[in-house]
């Protein structure tokens, strides 16, 4: 019985908490609508497209391929990213580079972002630091799946 | 009474001519061996004489010969005259002053083991000596000491002189065989040892010039006399080649067991004016170095091994206090890096690595951990290589680095 009473008190307390939030936030919202500026904001929501939050430096965002000084991709088509990718979204085709110091470069480098799960394993696996996920670009939604397949030009650009 | 054995008549003019040599009692041993002795008796005599190899390893010659199996295949003798060890110059003296003594040894050895062809593998740089040897050989042919049916004994022997092309590694017996066969001078894998599978897959005896040169004296004077010249376990005298900062560099034939101090200060006349002894390399460059404090040592196989060095080819290199030990190390490292045949990994890359480090130190870019790396690398080379060159390289480098660590550290 006492236990049940305890529950009852907690139930009341719960609803008081939500009510408090409701009332307080409503108050601040109304103040804002009336044009009165307050220190406290009624909501933590960020109005995304107009108002952007800075992504953390470790955030894994859209991939990019690094380039050498002369603009060639740093990637040597070792395909370790292809190997490690858990969602099988990377495809690389190698080709012979006339430069003996490079020898191998990716003729094709395709990431199917529609499949990518942004685990960042490709970045970890890369022995040449050729792929990074630090563009900070997180809104690359497209209307067709085909547009989410990024090739070398798109990844370097 | 101990006396000079090999260099006894070196002062004589034209000793290299067979007539002169014969006047001094030359070829009597050959006659004695071929006419009066059986091969087994000769072998017994050589074994009793405790003649140890003079090339560096000190393996008893008689025992080596007895390893040659009885087969239908031809057997060969190779005389190792590829005197490549820096500091060593005793063989060239023997060959240029008294080539017939060597030839006599070759004849007796061949007779003993049953060899019909002998090769003298001489280093390429000894051109004049090679010519002299060839001349001596043709004289011996003329006199009937070589060729068919020598001294009516029914024993045939041909001797050839083969000039090397200047690789240190060809002084290693199996590399010498490869070179002799016309291939790249890479050491072979042992076993099988050359005594059973050697030149052209046939049983082959390989001995140093000095070793072979001793044979005629053993035959002539008997094993007991020979043993008396040296130590019980180690018969005969040794030719010590002294070089470096001494007053009288040159060769000194002395009994085994002579003190190093005596050799340097008594026989070789002491240090040059104004120089002080700093270190001695007692047995060719591959022998670990001895510091000035350690020179009071008997020069024989066992004493030097006890002192963590080796007798090697008995070439004594004397280093004075004005010489930077880093220069010594540089020379040693460069030499072995340059002379590695490149076949097995530790020697090929290890020596080059050490050389690169030493070079860097010499350029003044040494690092604190460099000496430790040198020691580590050398210890990784030692014992892990295909042929003794790896050990030969590692030992002096380790000893120099350890014994003169303070001096080296000051250069970092």
């Amino acid at each position: 019985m006492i236990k049940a009473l305890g529950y009852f008190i907690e139930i009341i307390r719960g609803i008081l908490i939500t009510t408090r939030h409701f009332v307080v936030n409503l108050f601040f919202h109304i103040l804002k609508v009336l044009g009165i500026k307050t220190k406290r904001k009624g909501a933590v929501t960020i109005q995304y497209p107009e108002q952007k939050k800075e992504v953390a430096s470790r955030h894994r965002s859209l991939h990019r391929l690094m380039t050498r000084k002369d603009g060639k991709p740093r990637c040597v088509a070792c395909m370790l990213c292809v190997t490690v990718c858990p969602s099988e979204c990377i495809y690389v085709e190698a080709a012979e580079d006339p430069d003996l110091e490079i020898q191998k470069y990716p003729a094709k480098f395709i990431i199917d972002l529609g499949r990518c799960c942004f685990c960042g394993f490709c970045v970890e696996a890369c022995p040449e630091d050729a792929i990074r996920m630090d563009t900070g670009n997180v809104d690359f939604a497209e209307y067709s799946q085909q547009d989410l397949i990024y090739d070398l030009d798109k990844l370097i650009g | 009474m101990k006396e000079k054995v090999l260099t006894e008549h070196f002062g004589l003019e034209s000793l290299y001519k067979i007539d002169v040599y014969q006047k001094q009692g030359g070829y009597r041993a050959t006659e004695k061996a071929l006419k009066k002795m059986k091969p087994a008796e000769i072998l017994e005599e050589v074994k009793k004489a405790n003649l140890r190899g003079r090339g560096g390893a000190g393996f008893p010659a008689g025992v080596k010969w007895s390893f040659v199996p009885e087969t239908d295949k031809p057997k060969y003798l190779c005389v190792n005259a590829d005197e490549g060890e820096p500091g060593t110059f005793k063989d060239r003296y023997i060959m240029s002053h008294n080539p017939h003594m060597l030839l006599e040894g070759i004849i007796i050895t061949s007779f003993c083991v049953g060899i019909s062809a002998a090769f003298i593998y001489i280093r390429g740089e000894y051109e004049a000596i090679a010519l002299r040897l060839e001349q001596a050989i043709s004289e011996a042919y003329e006199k009937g000491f070589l060729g068919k049916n020598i001294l009516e004994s029914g024993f045939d022997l041909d001797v050839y002189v083969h000039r090397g092309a200047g690789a240190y590694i060809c002084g290693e017996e199996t590399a010498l065989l490869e070179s002799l066969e016309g291939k790249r001078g890479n050491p072979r894998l042992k076993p099988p040892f050359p005594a059973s599978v050697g030149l052209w897959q046939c049983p082959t005896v390989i001995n140093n010039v000095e070793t072979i040169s001793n044979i005629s004296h053993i035959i002539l004077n008997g094993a007991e006399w020979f043993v008396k010249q040296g130590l019980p376990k180690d018969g005969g005298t040794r030719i010590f080649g002294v070089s470096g900062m001494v007053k009288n560099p040159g060769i000194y034939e002395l009994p085994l067991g002579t003190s190093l101090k005596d050799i340097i200060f008594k026989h070789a006349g002491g240090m040059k004016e104004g120089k002080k002894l700093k270190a001695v390399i007692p047995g060719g460059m591959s022998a670990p170095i001895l510091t000035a404090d350690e020179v009071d040592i008997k020069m024989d196989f066992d004493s030097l091994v006890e002192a963590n060095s080796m007798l090697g080819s008995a070439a004594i290199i004397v280093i004075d206090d004005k010489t930077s030990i880093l220069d010594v190390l540089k020379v040693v490292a460069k030499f072995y890096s340059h002379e590695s045949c490149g076949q097995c990994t530790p020697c090929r890359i290890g020596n080059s690595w050490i050389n690169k480090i030493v070079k860097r130190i010499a350029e003044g870019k040494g690092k604190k951990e460099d000496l430790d790396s040198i020691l580590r690398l050398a210890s990784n080379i030692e014992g892990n290589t295909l042929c003794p060159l790896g050990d030969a390289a590692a030992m002096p480098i380790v000893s120099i680095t350890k014994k003169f660590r303070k001096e080296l550290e000051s250069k970092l």
Partner: protein
Amino acid sequence: MIKIFIDEQQVEVEEGMTVLKAAERAGIHIPHLCYHPAFPPEGSCRMCLVEIEGFPKLELACSTVVKEDMKISIKSARVVEARKAVLEFLLAEHPLDCPICDKAGDCKLQDYYDEYGLFESKFSETKEKREKKLKIGKTLILDQERCILCTRCVRFLKEVTKTQELGVFHRGIDAEVNIYEGAAVLNNYTGNLAQICPVGAITDEDFRFKTRSWFLKEGESICPLCSRGCNILIEYHPGFPRFEVPRRAYRIKARENPEVNGFWVCDRGKYGYSYLEEGRADKIILNKIEGKDVLTWENISEYLGEKIKRVSSAKKTSGIALVLHTWLSNEELFLIHKIFRKGLKVKKIFFADLPQGEADEYLLTSETSPNRRGAQEIGFDIKAVNLDALAKGTDFLLAFGPFLSGLFSLKALKEVLSKVKRKVLISSYLNEVNSLFDIVIPAALIAEKEGSLTNVDGVIQSFKPALEPPGESLPEWKVLADLGKELGTDSKLFEDLNSPGAILGEMGKEIPFFKKK
């Protein structure tokens, strides 16, 4: 047999064996780079050093011969230390090329580093610069920087092909493998060099940069390109399903078989793998068909049986003609012999094979098909196709293989085949002659089916499928076994013939040559 102890494990081995082989026999791998079972030990890499009780130094496992009660330790601290040291030396001068090296993945140096090394490089000097991309043969590329001087290639060319195109030049750290001036590695076995190179020093342009070795799956098979029957491994990529990249064979490797090909395979077998994919038929082609609309592998034997029965009952068996080839396995040829030659007494049996090619003194034979000997032993009289004889009075033609088009012009074939009422072709390829037949049934290749082949020396070798057959293709023996049942020639016997193994067993009973030894 003597007993030795490897790391306290007692092993019984034959006398005269080397420690390395003895350990391998006991299932213990001793790392080695320069040693290759085809050659005498070289002893230059120093990876196989082991500690043997009673020996002061570490001994080479590849050359030391076992003795009774020898106590060998392979994992003692000293051995591991030496191995690490050797690895450190090798890697000091080895470029960090793994990302672009085709050998990565099956590189011994990588494997051993993974197993014993895992140290940080202490090598702070400059590495030697050497030739990175030296074309030394038709398709071979030598990277001298990667070379660890195991000299396997040099020894291969010296001892197997005896052509000696490669040699070791210079000495010490400058030592390098190279071709002699103005020469190139040109012989019929160059492909093996890339395979025996333990690191990526010799790579093959044919495979260079195409894929990575760890993507590849391998299947054991037998090379069908000549009658030697070399044992091979087919390395293929199963394809990237996400990117519409289909299955593809990337390279052929020799598989050890001392009886037939040793460790080697010739260049024709090594590089001629395009037959596995190019122009493959993967669907049943129906050019003209009456009655049934749908013909599948399930009812194909029913259909064939019905047609054959009709012809044989009306016109006797002279109305049936067969065109065979010797890419068929022993079992398939045997079934054909059993059904048509013995059962239906068909006389018009011809063989259409590719013309003879060049042979060499070692492995490659002049025959371009793998099973001529088998056909002979089964009892076929190997007659070349005679078009007139083939068409004369023939109502039903069952042809195998794509080779007719190579032997005759399309026009001549069309003229002759138009006289034949019903024509069925069982072939693995899309070919111009396909249009001349009523039905073309896609068949699996030797690499895709089970069976056995008889090589030129009479060695019978069984093989299992290495790859999946494409599309609707299936092995011929299935159809033939079903057809045998359908025709009821020897129904009791055919009931049990449901696998190549069973057929081979039956062959052994009937033909002494195929009896298991």
